[in-house]
């Protein structure tokens, strides 16, 4: 075990993956010897050479197009998109290409070796274009897996799974926690199962569901609620696609209440999918409407970031409202 922050955990996963198979390649804008603007890939060029960890020209659609081709050739392509906000030029290569590659070819070809890493989320004074949480844009896309770790331990184990998973994976890293989240992480290789939600804290009164950086907000809100005598079951969804309906539904059947929180805007966010599915699965158990605590339906504003941000106070209020419905 070693103390690592989330960036170091990501770097360690990449290092182990590249050591494990020389078919693993890491690339993106500025990710070469410089190590990326966040330094997630630093040291990799020195260790594995400039052909295994390298810079790309500045073209996201090209990065993912290239990665798709490389993965279809049988390599493990680990592509970094510098910010989640800049993933949209690659949207076609992700939703029309990567996600449909195996199906459309009848399994003659696949891009299972593809992993897209991208930092996402707000709380860093990034304004419109360094703050978005675009997971829901991809969650409507059969064929993709989407993973969002909440801490260094999860990040490393999940990223290793993502790289070697035989399906294309979008791995979204909570940049607010890159340096802020520090924890004990095994130094060697380990993998965590994709598609499994994680019960972070057991409770009986209300289920609070979050993913990525929002989990610690949910935990903080649960702590406040505990002061009021409310027992929250906090669940980290971990994988957005395909998601673990059973774990969430089972919890809600127990608590009768669900608060879902996400950083992204409310409308058609992933919280909506969760609410839609759970009201179906748990209809007879629900004691109050499923609450979604989300970003406003506006672009991400810089000077009102504090107000826009889905903080623990907002989640706490939603928990209370759910209890007193």
């Amino acid at each position: 075990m070693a103390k690592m922050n989330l960036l170091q955990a990501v770097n360690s996963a990449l290092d182990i993956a590249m050591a494990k198979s020389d078919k693993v390649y890491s690339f993106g804008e500025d990710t070469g010897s410089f190590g990326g603007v966040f330094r997630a890939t630093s040291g990799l060029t020195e260790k594995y050479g400039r052909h295994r960890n390298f810079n790309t020209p500045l073209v996201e659609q090209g990065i993912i197009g290239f990665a798709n081709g490389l993965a279809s050739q049988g390599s493990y392509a680990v592509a970094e998109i510098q910010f989640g906000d800049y993933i949209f030029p690659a949207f076609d290569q992700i939703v029309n290409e990567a996600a449909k590659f195996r199906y459309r070819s009848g399994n003659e070809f696949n891009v299972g070796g593809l992993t897209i890493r991208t930092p996402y989320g707000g709380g860093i004074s990034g304004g419109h274009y360094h703050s978005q949480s675009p997971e829901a844009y991809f969650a409507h896309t059969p064929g993709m897996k989407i993973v969002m770790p909440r801490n260094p331990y999860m990040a490393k184990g999940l990223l290793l799974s993502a790289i070697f998973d035989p399906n294309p994976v979008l791995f979204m890293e909570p940049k607010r926690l890159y340096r802020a989240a520090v924890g004990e992480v095994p130094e060697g290789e380990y993998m965590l199962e994709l598609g499994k939600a994680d019960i972070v804290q057991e409770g009986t009164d209300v289920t609070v569901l979050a993913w990525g950086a929002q989990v610690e907000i949910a935990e903080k809100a649960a702590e406040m609620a505990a002061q009021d005598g409310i027992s929250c079951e906090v669940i980290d969804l971990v994988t957005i696609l395909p998601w673990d309906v059973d774990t969430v539904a089972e919890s809600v059947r127990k608590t009768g209440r669900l608060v879902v929180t996400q950083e992204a805007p409310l409308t058609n966010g992933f919280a909506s999918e969760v609410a839609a599915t759970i009201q179906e699965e748990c209809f007879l158990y629900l004691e109050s409407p499923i609450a979604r605590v989300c970003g406003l339906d506006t672009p991400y504003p810089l000077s009102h970031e504090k107000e826009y941000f889905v903080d623990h106070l907002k989640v706490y209020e939603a928990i209370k409202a759910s209890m007193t419905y």
Partner: protein
Amino acid sequence: MAKDTQHQLDIVTQPQFIDGSALTIPMFQILSEDGTIRKGAKAPEMDKELALKIFSTMQFIRILDERMIAAQRQGRISFYLSSLGEEAASIGSAAALIPEDMIMGQYREQGALAFRGFTVEQFMNQLFSNERDFGKGRQMPVHYGCADLNFMTIASPLATQIPQATGYAYGQKMDKSGTCTICYFGEGAASEGDFHAGLNMASVYKVPVIFFCRNNGYAISTPSQGEQYGGDGIAPRGVAYGMKTIRVDGNDVFAVYEATRLARELAVEHNEPVLIEGMSYRMAGHSTSDDPTGYRTREEENAWKGKDPVVRFQKWLQNQGWITEEQAEQNYEEKKAMVLAALKEAETIPVPHIDEIIEDVYDTPPKHLQKQLAELKAHIRKYPEAYPKTAPRIDGGK
């Protein structure tokens, strides 16, 4: 001339704008329209066997295209897309590769696939979306693909295969495989952002890829010159990316073959990506959904008939004494019979089993898809007459 030390650039003191026509690239031709070798040119070193295989593939594709357009008119298949007039481009280039080289096509390269050995039955199974289709009947007709033949499955979104080809070739280079990737696309697709991405990245990474642009004058109804681009076509872009580039007569199978053969050397032996622009003409409509009389003249079409790549090559073969007109005619009839037989057979084969609907979304179907399939099957069992293609076999396993 003065030089700038930092940039290593020549310095000029007059504001001379370089004109858009500063770089016009000539067209390489060996076989002239009358089927003779052009003066000063040299026929490629090609033995009789290869020459006849190329010609035979050309004939086959002509027949396949003709027959399948007819089949579409008869309502037997929903859609077809012919490569009429462009056979030399796809077949001549495929012939210059080795079978291990990867082919990534747009959708009009059935010739390359046939050259690789895709059988008439395999073509038909895809065209009829039956259960023997490698693609499991999931995509529209002409979306062929075959891993064994190193022919990447065709997909409709244009130009997406261009940066993918660069990535594929990167893997080939790293694996020291001694192979390359050829990537076909139309001059229309070359307007997409993915084209720019793919070529620029290939130039930066120096990967063994051959970009083969089929410039056939049209993208559906949009003429290339002046409406698709304002310059001298696609070839000058290769130069702008710092890439070896050649423009060939796409209707001249020898020029195509020779250029591709040399390009392959550059690619595989020197890791030099190459751009080939093959000038040709889409003699048929864009697809069976299209009617070109709405946007171009008969005269134009007729002018191109004189450049027919198959006729031209046949003339050369006859002059060479490698085939007679009668032999060619006989081969044609034999192939036609074979195509018709395969067509009849393929249309009797059922569509894939309904269980296939959730396969291959992921490597294995996750729980939610298993649930959706179970619900769908329960529904089909309830209304079998509404789903006649799948209901009868629903409980018979795959």
